[in-house]
C-alpha cells in the first residue's frame, strides 16, 4: 500500500473553556493519500473543523493537541509550536478555504492586492510579476476579465465569485493539500455545483489532495473518493465512497444515510437521529454513540470499540463487527440506497 501523504494517529485535542477542559478530538486516526479527495462528514460539533484546523496550527488560542501524531512530510505537526514554525506549512503546503466567502476577504483592499500579497509571501515573484501571477490565478479560477477584476473590491463581487477568489488565494502557493471547510454551504445550489467543478478541475491540474468538510452527503457522493465519518471527536467509520454509501457498517453512518432527504418516502416524516451528541466536557465511556444507538449492545456502554477492518480500505469502530456480536440487519432505507444511487447515476 502506498505511503499516506498525511497521517493522523490517535490524536487528542482539548480546549479549556471557562476553567473546564473539553475534549474535542478523542483518539482520531486518519490517513490521507496523495491526489485523493477525502470527505469528512458528521453533525455540527463532531470535531470536523477542529481536526483539520490542527493540520495548519489554527486551533483557537485556548486549544491544544494533547496527544497523538500528525505526520506530514517527515515531520510531526503535533509538535509544532509558535507561528514561525507553522508558517512553513500554513498556506504553503496546506491551504484552507472557508465556509462563508462573504466575510472571508478584507473589505477594504482590492481583491488583486489580497491575492498578490499571498503570491509574494509564498513565491519569489515580486511587483509586476506577482501581479501578473495574481491575474493569472483569477483567470484560472474562472473569473472573467481578470485584469479589471484585479482592481475591484470584494463588495463588487458576488458570493460565488468571492469563493473563487478565496480559492485563488489558496492556490497561489500551489499547496499539496487543500482543506475546504464547507465551501459551498453559504452558496446557492447552482453556484455550489460550479465551485465543486472548479475545485475538481484544479485538483486534476495541480495534483492536489483535497479534504472536504461537509454535512451535505449529496456533495460527498458528488466529489469524494473516500469518506470519513466523525462522531464526538473520533472517526467512527472510514472507507471508500462506495463502501460508505453501499456497505456502511456503523450504526451512526446508517443513521446519517437514513436522514438523507432523497431516501424519504412521500407522506412519511423524514428520519432523524434521536437524542443529542454527548457532552464533550464529561469523560465518555464505551462508544460515544451508544446512548442514541437503537442497536447498542451492552458492551457499547462499557468499552470503547476497537477498529474493525471490513476491507483493506474500509474500517469501522463498532462492536457490531465483533464476531461474538449478534447479526443485525441495517435499516431498510440503507438497503434501498444502492438501488437509488444506481438509478440516480443512470439519470445523470
Amino acid at each position, binding site marked *: 500500500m502506498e505511503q499516506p501523504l498525511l497521517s493522523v494517529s490517535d490524536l487528542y485535542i482539548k480546549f479549556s473553556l471557562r476553567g473546564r477542559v473539553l475534549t474535542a478530538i478523542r483518539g482520531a486516526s486518519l490517513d490521507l493519500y496523495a491526489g485523493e479527495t477525502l470527505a469528512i462528514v458528521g453533525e455540527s460539533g463532531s470535531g470536523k473543523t477542529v481536526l483539520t484546523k490542527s493540520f*495548519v496550527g*489554527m486551533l483557537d488560542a485556548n486549544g491544544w493537541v494533547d496527544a497523538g501524531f500528525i505526520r506530514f512530510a517527515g515531520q510531526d505537526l503535533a509538535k509544532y509550536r509558535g*507561528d*514561525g514554525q507553522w*508558517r512553513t506549512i*500554513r*498556506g*504553503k503546503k496546506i*491551504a*484552507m478555504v*472557508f465556509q*462563508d466567502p462573504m*466575510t*472571508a*476577504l*478584507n*473589505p*477594504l*483592499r482590492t481583491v488583486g492586492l489580497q491575492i498578490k*500579497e*499571498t503570491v509574494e*509571501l*509564498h513565491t519569489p515573484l515580486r511587483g509586476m510579476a506577482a501581479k501578473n501571477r495574481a491575474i493569472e490565478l483569477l483567470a484560472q479560477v474562472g473569473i472573467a*476579465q481578470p*485584469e*479589471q*477584476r484585479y*482592481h*475591484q*473590491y470584494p*463588495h*463588487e463581487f458576488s458570493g460565488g465569485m468571492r469563493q473563487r477568489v*478565496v480559492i485563488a*488565494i489558496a492556490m497561489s*502557493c500551489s499547496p499539496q493539500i487543500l482543506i475546504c471547510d464547507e465551501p459551498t454551504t453559504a452558496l446557492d445550489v447552482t453556484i455550489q455545483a460550479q465551485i465543486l467543478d472548479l475545485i475538481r478541475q484544479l485538483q486534476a491540474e495541480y495534483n492536489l489532495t483535497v479534504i472536504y468538510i461537509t454535512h451535505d452527503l449529496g456533495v460527498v457522493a458528488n466529489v469524494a473518493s473516500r469518506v470519513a465519518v466523525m462522531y464526538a471527536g473520533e472517526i467512527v467509520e472510514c472507507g471508500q465512497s462506495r463502501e460508505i454509501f453501499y456497505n456502511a457498517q456503523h450504526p451512526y453512518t446508517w443513521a446519517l444515510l437514513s436522514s438523507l432527504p432523497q431516501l424519504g418516502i412521500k407522506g412519511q416524516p423524514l428520519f432523524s437521529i434521536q437524542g443529542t451528541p454527548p457532552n464533550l466536557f464529561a469523560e465518555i465511556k464505551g462508544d460515544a454513540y451508544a446512548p442514541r444507538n437503537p442497536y447498542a449492545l451492552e458492551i457499547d456502554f462499557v468499552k470503547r470499540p476497537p477498529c474493525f477492518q471490513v476491507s483493506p480500505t474500509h474500517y469501522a469502530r463498532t462492536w457490531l463487527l465483533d464476531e461474538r456480536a449478534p447479526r443485525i440487519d441495517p435499516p431498510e432505507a440503507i438497503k434501498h440506497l444502492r438501488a437509488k444511487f444506481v438509478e440516480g447515476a443512470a439519470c445523470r
Partner: protein
Amino acid sequence: MRPRRSGRVIALSPSGRPDSNNRERGIYIRSHIGALPTYILKKSLGALITVFFVITVVFLLMRLMPIEGYFGDDFDRLAPVQREAILQKMGLLDPWYIQLSNFYQDLARGDLGTSIIFRPNVPVAEIIAPKVPYSLKFGLAAMALSLSLGLLLGIFQAREKGKWPDALGTSYVIFINAVPAAVYFLFIQLYLTQLSGLPILYSSARPLSWILPAVSMSLGGIAGYAMWIRRFMVDELNKDYIKLARAKGLSNTRVMFSHVLRNAFVPMVQHLPTTLLMTIAGSIFIESLYSIPGMGGLLIDAISRQDNPLVQALVLIYSTIGVFGLFIGDILMAITDPRIKLEKAGGAR
C-alpha cells in the same frame, strides 16, 4: 451615474461593435475615486449650511444675554437714558432681523466686531490673533503626545488582549474617563510639580514650564485614542477575513499591521480631524489652569466678564472648526472606505 444610458450611447455609435472591455474598465476604476469631487462639493455645501445655522443660533442666543454685558463696570453709574443712547449707538435697539442682517454683512467683510469690556474698542480679531500661536503650540504638542502614545497603547492592548497589559491600559482609560479632570489636574499641580521640580505656571521664557501643560492636555487624548483603536482593532480581529489572512500564512505581526490596524483606522478617521482640530484650538480648562495666554483661557475670561462680542466671535471660531473637522472626516472616510457610495448624498454613514 447612469450606466444604462451610456450603454445605449455606445451601442448606437457608428463604429459598430461597442468596446465593452474599455468601457467596463473605466466604470470599474472610476466608480470609486471618480465621483469624489462631486462628493466633496456636496459635503462642503452641507458644511457651509451647518456653519450658517450655527452662526445664526449663536447670534440669537447672544441677544438673550443680559444687557449689562455691554456696559461693564459703568452700568450702575449710567442713567437709563444714557444706557439707551449707548445701546442705540451699537444698533442693539434695532429690530432683531436688522441686527442679524448687519451681523451677516459685517461677517462677510471679515469684521467680527469690537470688544467692549476686555479691551474696549479693540477689534475682536486683533485680540484673538496673538493668542492663536500659544494655543497652536500647546495643541500641537499635546496632539503629537496623545496621538502617538494613545495609538501605541491601544495597539499594544489589542495585541495583548485579555492579558495584564490590556487590563492596565483599560484601567487607565476608565480612570481618566470616570474621574473629573479637575481632580487629577489638582493632584498634578499639588504633587507632580513637587516631585518633578517642574514649574506650575506657564512662562514663555522657561521651556521647562511648557512640559506640564502639554502632558496634562494629552492625558485625556491618550485615553480616548487608546480606547478607540483598541476597540476597533478587537472588532476587526474577530472578523472572518483575519482567519483567512492567517491561513494564507501571513505572520501575526503582518496581519496586525497590514490588515487589522489599517481597517481599524477607517471608523476612526471620521472623528479624528475634529478631535485634532479641537486640541489645536486650545483647551479651555488647561489654559486657564496654567495661565497660558491662549484662546481657551480667553474664552473663560470673556464669558466671566460678559464681553458679548468677544464671546460671540470665539464661539463662532470653535464651532466652525468643529464643522470643518467633521467635513474633513467625511472626506477621509470616503477615501479610505471603498464601500461608501459616493454617488448618493449622505451615504457616508
